[in-house]
């Protein structure tokens, strides 16, 4: 756990310094929700009910970028070598990197929420469910993302392979988070509780798998 804090702190500090998230990922997500608006708009009657789904698709696409970034900062060409030589516990590396990605994604989601509220005219009701869905979904996405990010890191085809591996697995997260948000935005947040528990199960399951699988993944055993 000590290792996890160390890694997360390091990753966040690097991100804070390099501002890649601010300069590239956030504008990317903004572009995505703008483009959705062009594709489906301009009628608010169409956009507002779809805003939960569009929001989460934008988050999903951005999380691919954030994950890729998380491995790009590890001494560019020798990412796995650097992690292996670091002397850190693999489970700690996994938890730390996932935590850093989750924090970055949550910040992004906060901004995007305002984006959909303004652009799509979504009325933000059921804030508690909205927030809980963000946390649970983000933890799941970060966990899957970091495992697959490590799988793909160091491969020459990583840019194309990571989305192909990551997005289908994340399908239940997209579904669960979208439905939870739908219920909350419709003003019936209690309807989203079931979806919240689905998101939580997904998160717990993949955090557990990642913690166990990261060792063999870095070829430690």
């Amino acid at each position: 756990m000590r290792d996890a804090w160390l890694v997360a702190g390091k990753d966040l500090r690097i991100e804070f310094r390099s501002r890649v998230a601010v300069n590239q990922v956030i504008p990317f997500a903004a572009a995505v929700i703008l483009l959705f608006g062009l594709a489906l708009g301009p009628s608010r009657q169409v956009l507002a009910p779809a805003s939960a789904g569009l929001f989460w698709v934008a988050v999903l696409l951005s999380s691919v970028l954030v994950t890729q970034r998380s491995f790009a900062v590890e001494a560019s060409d020798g990412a796995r070598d650097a992690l292996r030589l670091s002397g850190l516990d693999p489970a700690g590396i996994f938890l730390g990197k996932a935590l850093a990605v989750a924090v970055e994604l949550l910040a992004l989601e906060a901004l995007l929420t305002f984006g959909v509220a303004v652009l799509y005219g979504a009325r933000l009701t059921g804030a508690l469910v909205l927030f809980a869905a963000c946390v649970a979904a983000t933890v799941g996405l970060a966990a899957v993302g970091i495992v697959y990010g490590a799988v793909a890191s160091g491969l020459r085809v990583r840019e194309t392979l990571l989305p192909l591996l990551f997005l289908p697995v994340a399908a239940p997260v997209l579904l669960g988070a979208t439905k939870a948000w739908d219920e909350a935005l419709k003003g019936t947040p209690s309807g989203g509780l079931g979806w919240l528990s689905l998101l939580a199960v997904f998160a717990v399951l993949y955090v557990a798998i990642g913690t166990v699988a990261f060792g063999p993944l870095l070829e430690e055993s």
Partner: protein
Amino acid sequence: MTRSRILTTTGVLALVGIAATVWLGLWVTPNAVNFGDLVRLLYIHPPMAWVAFLAYGMAFLSSLGYLWRRTRDPRLDRLAGASAEVGVVFTGLTLITGSIWGRPTWGVWWTWDPLLTTTALLFVLYLGYLALRRVPGDPEVVARRSAIAALIAFVDVPIVYFSVSWWRSLHQAPTVDLSGRHLYVHGSMAWTLLLGFVSFTLAYAWLTAHRYRLAALADREADEGLRQALDERRAEGEVLV
């Protein structure tokens, strides 16, 4: 019997079984009420879907076994790869036959039915897995990362199915009743369906075994190449000794 004899027998049985299923399905069994000739798809579509799930289950179990044992048995890795490949082929076939079933029944090629949707997601999920397997690298490293990917993919299957069926049950707007599953199967139909299941399972075993054998041969060839490469490499030092 030798191993290759068993393999050949399995192949022949599978072929005969599938031929018999086709014959029974197309000429012997009766039309079903409400379904007409369409019911004949029943004899191959569910068996194909079953084989796909069987194949993924096998890939999951062998991947788990590969990671579990510290010896990292390359045979388990080969089995996982072979099984998943066959699984993807049968998933594709399941989707195609499902669409053919869907067109006359519901008037559309595609419906967001939980099973269909799950199958489609499975298809892309395992295409990703196969793509990952094909990325070259150190055999053991490839095996390990593939095994982890297989684990992640398989764990996702029930979650996907559960979430999709829940999603559908909440939004029953333009209901398409999948009454195919409430079909009354009897007599020659039941036997034909059973035969379909058995022969497609045999076909799975036969294809997977062949795919496995091919992978084993490729590995052996690589080993031979390695021995030669080792000799050459050692000879580089000879000049100096």
